[in-house]
């Protein structure tokens, strides 16, 4: 399913690390997010060196790897998943590159397309190195999302604009992923820089509450991406040995809060914007 279809109204795009804390629980959790109103879902394929992640998602990745998650199992998971929204694979380039018998990203992309992935976010793949993956995505009709950082300007923006499809991931602040309270001043500036791009703009890194989502959408975003605040719920449930159904309910409730916040944000945007 094409990714920009998710952005008809302000989109809520959650992230979870697949396989955290187990394959079965993870299935239930992702489905709970869809039930709670997710418009698209970023499914993290755990990599051993997640250099763009803060401690929350690092820990999730460790739990998932220890529970036996691999690229092969990940694709089974996606195939088995019973949700009706676009799915985005978020991982690091070495796993994309190594998959299958031939070197290069093509076998990974082919398999992802087969199981129903709609696109990719690869945080350690800047536009400079992305040509082979872009080519494979074009061949199989998948989107390639890029991250616009607070430090991205000038020619770098142009290069990214040329490669991006699906949506653009606006990184709300410098640093790694992780839930924070405040709305970063960077967000508005970044959104202004790419205002004329014809792809939806989703803001991520640090979004935690419905109010937070509301403010970001009213600042001009087409959607919000939320990871660590949801992973925290999974981690807490795991630590306390809470029943899977209870944790799934909490995730669904949190999803509703975030989705409602995003929608409220649109109401506050000046007409015509």
């Amino acid at each position, binding site marked *: 399913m094409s990714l920009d279809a998710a952005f008809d109204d302000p989109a809520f795009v959650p992230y979870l690390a697949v396989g955290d804390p187990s394959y079965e629980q993870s299935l239930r959790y992702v489905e709970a997010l869809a039930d709670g109103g997710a418009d698209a879902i970023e499914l993290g394929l755990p*990599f*051993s*060196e*997640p*250099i*763009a*992640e*803060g401690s929350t998602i*690092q820990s999730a990745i*460790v739990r998932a*790897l220890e529970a036996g998650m*691999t*690229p*092969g199992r990940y694709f089974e998971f996606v195939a088995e998943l019973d949700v009706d929204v676009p799915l985005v694979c978020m991982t*690091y*380039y*070495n*796993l994309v*590159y*190594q*998959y299958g018998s031939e*070197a290069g990203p093509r076998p990974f992309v082919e398999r992802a397309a087969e199981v129903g992935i709609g696109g990719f976010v690869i*945080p*350690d*793949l*800047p536009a*400079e*190195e992305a040509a082979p993956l872009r080519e494979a995505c074009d061949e199989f009709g998948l989107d390639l999302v*890029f*991250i*616009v*950082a*607070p*430090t*991205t*300007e000038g020619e*770098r923006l142009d290069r*990214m604009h040329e490669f991006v499809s699906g949506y653009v991931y606006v*990184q709300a602040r*410098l*640093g*790694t992923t992780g839930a924070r309270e405040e709305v970063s001043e960077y967000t508005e500036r970044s959104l202004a820089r790419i205002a004329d791009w014809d792809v939806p703009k989703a803001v991520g890194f640090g979004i935690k509450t419905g109010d937070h989502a509301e403010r970001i959408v009213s600042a001009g975003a087409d959607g919000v991406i939320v990871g660590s605040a949801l992973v925290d719920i999974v981690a807490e449930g795991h630590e306390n040995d809470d029943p899977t159904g209870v944790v799934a309910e909490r995730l669904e409730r949190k999803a509703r809060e975030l989705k409602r916040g995003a929608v409220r944000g649109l109401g506050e945007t000046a007409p015509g914007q």
Partner: protein
Amino acid sequence: MSTDGSFGEYGGQYVPEALMPAIEELSDAYERYVLENEDGFRDELSERLTDFGGRPTPLGRADQLSERYDREVYLKREDLLHGGAHKLNNALGQVLLAKYMGKERIIAETGAGQHGTATAMAAAHLNMPCEIYMGETDIARQRPNVFRMRTNGATVTPVTTGRGTLKEAISETMRDWAATVEDTHYIIGSIVGPHPFPAMVRDFHAVISEEAREQMLETAGQLPDAVLACAGGGSNTMGMFQQFRDDDGVELYAVEAGGSSLSVDEDAGVAPNSATLSTGDEGVLHGARTKVLQDGDGQIMESHSVSAGLDYAGVGPELAEMVDRGRVQAVNVDDDAALAAFHRLAREEGVIPALETAHAFGYLEQHHDELGEVVVLNVSGRGDKDLETVIEETQSRDLDVGPTMDLFRDLGGHTAGEDR
């Protein structure tokens, strides 16, 4: 090297977008200051390497080893550089470059603590605040260097993820950089990472072979037949090879850590060695495409070596390319041979080498017959930092070199290894 930082199929810039502007800024500064000597950068660095670092370091004949192996053996003494290892060449170069670039804070990772120590010294010397990330396993096995860094005023931040060694420390330093990139410079400690680091770190260490090549011509009256250096990421290695790479008659040997075994436990995700050049295959790690120790899926393995400075699952992309091309021989020796070589060099020549360096001497012991008439080895560092480890590791195996530990038993009723 091409201008985009690739070495054949290796190299590149695989880093988060947030870091790319800083990396472009650094590439620009590398070209202007380091390659073109803008504002007299190279002159100032060279002066400081002399006045503060103690360059040039000597090269001398190892008389006992020459006799033992029946060939001419020479030692390039980077252990005599300030700080006790080659690392200062790069650390001082990059701290100075950060100053020229107007940066206000230095961060670095360290494995053995030698790069961290050199960086802390250089930062103190040039009056820059400095934070060093170090894996908790390495903090435990390189305690003297932890004290040295802190004495120089650096903050040492433990990294507790994974096995707590160099790989995790690099990842964590990259995370800091992603948050602080506007005013902070990341001084990577070897010829690894995204372009321009591999080329720039090599250039800062090339002074080793600039001196060594001249010194060989002066002292031995000829070029060596073989040049040996240990290789973790490969910075002392490329520094020692750089001026010999166009000398066709000179064989270059990169000696990696064979650890306890060259085999791999895929299920556990562990390679009990760090012989990346010999046993790794192509992958993307820490910003570069290079050889890495990884499982069939591409997950990075936990490496192992008795020497913290070689204990890394990746290697410099340029070195990987030179090995593929056949210009550099990738060889390795195991923990036992390195320990034996540590004791041998100390006893025969009065030089206590770093455990990293000892690997090169382990190879000399095992393969001297194949090395030609004149051999030069880079003594990349001194071994004071390793004495605790060496005492423990020597006790736990049956080595026929090195002092026995009876003295400690007689004196204290316990040994250094037992009270931890």
